């Protein structure tokens, strides 16, 4: 049994809306083991980032966590007083963001910002912190780290800034790194470099990563397990091979079909018809029902429960449930 770094049970985060609170994260449960990379996949606005922010209790006002339990490195995050929560942030779990361009304070040199991060969690002298920063810069592949210490953020490229952010996140050796679309704003070659760096560091330190992305290519590069999110809920969760190779949920299947592939050159790319329903149209049942090609009569009325379809592979879908039932009947006959 591997060590659990993060356990989330029944997490719900809500924002006030015109017609009562809207749950942008609704009854989400998952876990991340030590040294594991869990990818959280879904389209824009499905609640991926809010799930990530909830983990560190950083949900922007007026949103707040309304239900659930989060256990990070053995500590109940939602029960911690504010000062202890601050110690958890950065030390147990660090976060890197989507937009490296705005993730650094423009009026401080990058070195000073990393030093600040180091000295936040460690009693260490200014010179020692400076040396550590230069080492970290070297570790994350910043060329000429000594000179870069005094660089201003605007003097660095996007990839370099993301490396600085990674250095900052790594400085207190967190057990979990939450990476919120870490490569979305970068061009493709830099993306590959940053992903390589993340994987290298992850292997070296045994850190766990919660990777938030909408890019299934990145999932394939980095993830051990994948969770697919749709309209604030998890719809499918399983190992990378299970999801990328044998996804069961119609939404996951649709996502996979919409990736361009060389074998289907010239063929019109498959798409999922319709758009994500706005929160006020979320019914009691499956939220994908309106766009699903396998929709059943009771889909819109009844919420599908989690169904085990393989080793660590869960799906929330009535159609899959019926398939399974049919298969068992077939086998019994």
């Amino acid at each position: 049994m591997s060590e659990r770094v993060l356990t989330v049970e029944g997490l719900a985060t809500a924002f006030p809306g015109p017609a009562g609170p809207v749950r942008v994260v609704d009854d989400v449960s998952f876990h991340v083991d030590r040294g594991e990379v869990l990818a959280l996949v879904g389209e824009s606005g499905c609640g991926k980032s809010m799930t990530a922010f909830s983990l560190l209790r950083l949900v922007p006002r007026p949103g707040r966590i309304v239900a659930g339990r989060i256990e990070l490195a053995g500590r109940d995050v939602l029960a911690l007083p504010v000062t202890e929560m601050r110690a958890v942030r950065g030390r147990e779990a660090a976060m890197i963001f989507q937009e490296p361009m705005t993730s650094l304070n423009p009026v401080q040199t990058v070195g000073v910002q990393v030093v600040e991060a180091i000295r936040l969690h460690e009693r260490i002298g200014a010179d020692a912190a400076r040396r550590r920063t230069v080492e970290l810069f070297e570790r994350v592949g910043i060329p000429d780290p000594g000179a870069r210490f005094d660089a201003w953020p605007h003097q660095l490229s996007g990839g370099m800034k993301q490396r600085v952010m990674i250095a900052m996140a790594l400085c207190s050796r967190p057990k979990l790194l939450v990476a919120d679309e870490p490569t979305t704003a970068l061009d493709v070659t830099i993306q590959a470099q940053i992903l390589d760096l993340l994987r290298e560091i992850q292997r070296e330190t045994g850190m766990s990563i919660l990777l938030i992305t909408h890019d299934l290519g990145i999932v394939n590069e980095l993830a051990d397990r994948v969770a697919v999110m749709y309209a604030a809920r998890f719809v499918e969760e399983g190992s990378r091979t299970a999801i990328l190779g044998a996804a069961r949920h119609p939404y996951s299947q649709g996502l996979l079909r919409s990736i361009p592939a060389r074998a289907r050159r010239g063929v019109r790319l498959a798409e999922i018809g319709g758009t994500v329903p706005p929160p006020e149209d979320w019914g009691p049942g499956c939220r994908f029902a309106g766009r699903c090609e396998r929709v059943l009569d009771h889909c819109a009325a009844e919420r599908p429960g989690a169904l085990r379809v393989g080793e660590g592979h869960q799906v929330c879908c009535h159609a899959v449930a019926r398939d399974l039932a049919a298969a068992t009947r077939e086998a019994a006959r």
Partner: protein
Amino acid sequence: MPEAHVVSNAVVALLVLFAALVLRRAGRSRLWREAGASVVRRRPVSLAVVLLFVAVALLDAVSWTGGGGDAGEGDVVSVHQPRSVVDRAFPADWNEASYSAPLARVEFYGGAPLRHPGRHLLGTDIIGRDVLHLTLKGARVALLVGGLTTLIVIPLALLFGVSAGYRGGRWDDVVFFLISTLAAMPGLLLLIALIAVLGRGPVQVCVALGVTGWVGLCRLVRGETLKLRELDYVRAARALGVSEPRILFRHVIPNLMHLVVITAVLLFSGLVLSEAVLSWLGIGIDGSWGQMIDQARDELSRDPPITWNLLSASAALFALILAVNRVGDAVRDALDPRTAAELA
């Protein structure tokens, strides 16, 4: 209660000490050192003009009694009245009887001979005071109004603006209500009312100008804070476990400074001009350029008109404000790392 001139001397000493400390402290930081060098390089003339005005104002604020009072045996007043360094630069019996044109040898009306023929560079005013002397003394009042009021406005605006923008919620509503209410009152009317209540001393006028002047900057600061609060580097700092006060002082306020600097400069010039307006309404500070301009109202309608009085005060006002604006502009550019890189 110590005499006024003693207090004034002490304030000057404190100001000089404070400025020296600030300069020393700023000299240690690379950002400020580079900013200073950039300003000196880009605006040498304007900077020199500003420093000249500051020097004159400081010299005019240091005064003591006795010494050099050779205005004549019977002149008791001049012996006991404190005179500043600037006053002492002129002879004690410098005053003439009435108007005289610049460098004139005789009075303007009547043609009676002057006590110091040809030596009043900018002429004399209605009661024979040397205009150059008055203009130099005006610098102190102008810098007092601009400087002290700015010092009142900035902390007020930062305190309310940052707290409202950062905390949001009910407190934001309260501050915004306050701002809107103040902004809705006609500024001049409020000023007159405040001066009527507080009195007409220089400090009182500064307080009145400060109370009416902080709203604009506060609104700006609040808006900018609202924006900064949601920026990624503030979020990143929070995700790293940085405490809220530290976020405010290291990540929010430094990023507001360019706004504060440029507003302070504009405010400074605006305030010096407002004082002129107040003087024109007869509620300004004694000895200001505004008062000189106010008096010129009557003088312009004389025949032939007296113009040197008005021109000297206006030129001084113009020179100070232009120089301050140009220096402020350079300071803002130098403090913004993005433009600073282009300038270097």
